[in-house]
């Protein structure tokens, strides 16, 4: 079982690049510990900015830094970053077109028992709705590394959400298949398409394994690029399979499921069933307990696939 959280990988990649690229600046809002960025602050004090518990300031300052030519990476709990500073994301980053990378840590229901104030189940919908913003949810540590190496090469704003805890590997190594803004086909199949993002990719892959034993062949897409959604890969899979099931750690509106349904219904109408968090405060528990309760695990996904293929 992997013990390295995606946030730790982000710190590693940023540190590797910060040694030679002095324009990389990391910002935190009293969140360097929870973001696993303390080592960065320690090794690169001249490239670190602490703003205190002030997410609006965090994002505004990041935009100003970008305007001055810096490459800011601002990390803060996804719940606060995506909603408290929403307008700064919209106006200062996206509308003003500044190269700010926003890292939403402890995303989704990572802070399980802390309640709805600490959950980010709206971030995909909210940030995807802003023109010129991109939304990425990497599935494991290997893909997180690939994604950040790609992000370091571009100069447009983006929001990246990762969870708090280590997640099981989806891919074997850092050499995993990765093309920027293209979904990764995790398993191929002809019966059903399962589209997942973030921490839901691993259970989707496991569900495909379960279904194979029943003679159902599932094509699993790792749609880490929720926006821009890779509609080409999605439609290619949707066209050849009989139904589509989406899985995401997000509210049932405006997220991956909504975008997939919108795309599939327009181009090749098929049944699209969605697995997501409820439109309500989630039940108290660890991530695993909460996911199990809402059927956001391999068995729950397999069940939804059987329902879709009816």
């Amino acid at each position: 079982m992997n013990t390295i959280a995606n946030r730790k990988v982000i710190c590693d990649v940023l540190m590797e690049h910060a040694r030679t690229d002095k324009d990389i600046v990391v910002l935190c809002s009293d969140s360097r510990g929870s973001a696993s960025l303390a080592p960065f602050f320690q090794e690169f004090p001249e490239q670190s900015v602490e703003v205190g518990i002030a997410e609006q300031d965090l994002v505004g300052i990041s935009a100003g830094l970008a305007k001055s030519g810096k490459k800011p990476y601002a990390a803060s709990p996804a719940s606060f970053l995506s909603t408290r500073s929403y307008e700064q994301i919209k106006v200062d980053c996206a509308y003003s077109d500044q190269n700010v990378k926003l890292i939403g840590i402890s995303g989704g229901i990572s802070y399980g028992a802390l309640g709805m104030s600490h959950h980010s189940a709206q971030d995909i919908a909210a940030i995807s709705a802003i023109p010129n913003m991109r939304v990425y949810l990497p599935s494991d540590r290997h893909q997180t590394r690939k994604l950040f190496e790609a992000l370091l090469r571009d100069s447009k704003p983006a929001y990246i959400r990762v969870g708090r805890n280590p997640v099981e590997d989806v891919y074997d190594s850092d050499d995993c298949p990765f093309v920027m803004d293209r979904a990764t086909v995790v398993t191929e199949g002809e019966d059903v398409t399962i589209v997942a993002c973030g921490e839901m990719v691993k259970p989707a892959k496991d569900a495909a394994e379960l279904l194979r034993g029943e003679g159902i062949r599932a094509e699993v897409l790792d749609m880490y690029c929720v926006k821009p959604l890779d509609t080409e890969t999605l439609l290619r899979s949707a066209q050849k399979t009989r139904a589509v099931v989406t899985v995401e750690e997000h509210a049932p509106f405006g997220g991956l499921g909504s975008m997939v349904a919108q795309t599939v219904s327009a181009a090749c109408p098929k049944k699209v069933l969605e697995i997501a968090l409820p439109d309500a405060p989630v039940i108290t528990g660890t991530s695993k307990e909460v996911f199990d309760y809402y059927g956001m695990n391999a068995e729950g996904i397999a069940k939804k696939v059987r329902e879709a293929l009816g």
Partner: protein
Amino acid sequence: MAGGGGHIGGDMSVMETLVALYFREMNISPENQNDPDRDYFILSKGHSVEAYYAVLCAKGFLDLGDVKKRFSKFGSPYIGHPNNKLAGMEMNSGSLGHGLPVAVGLALGNRMSGRTNRTYVVMGDGELAEGSVWEGFMSGHMYGLDNLCAVIDRNHLQISGNTEDVMAQEVLKDRVKSFGWHVICPEDGNDVDQMIAAFEEAKQTKGQPTCIIANTVKGKGSPVMENKASWHHHVPTPEEYDEIVKDLDAHLAALG
């Protein structure tokens, strides 16, 4: 102007501040607008964009005839708030309370890069009710940004009326000072020379950022609109327009 919109009251109160900055203080021109060593300006009270257009036209960034013809018209690039797709405008604004944190980031980034240029941001006084402004005051002090100068266009009026009736700012000087900023209060913020003197004092201030609280008159330039809250976004009738132009021409003639 063409589009029949605008925020004339605030344009007229902030005009001398912009003139002092663009024609005396700042190292900025169409020739060096992409030079990283230029001075940076953020209009946080973005609704005063008409004054900003006038100054950018006079400075040669934009064409006055084109701005007058197309302002706020269908498909026009000259919208009712600053947009950085236009020459001379650094950042988009319009929603209040954004400019100071952005200016803090600019000043900080320039200092990190070893530059000696300066960053200026102009806010309104009604805008100070936004909490993000005070987050910016805190961080500007925390990082000792003496390359940063904020101006508050203290015209005492906002859309609903007197600022003191809407959200009182009567201890403004003490408030900003208590946040660790050097504060300068020119008696007449519509006097270009007084504003220039304030900007020079700001430049000489080391180890902390400076905030200039410019005591101004909303609608400055004509009794038709001076100190009247309704002129926040009132569009003059043809009669009012003629009278205002007459008053402004008289001011111009008096200046020789």
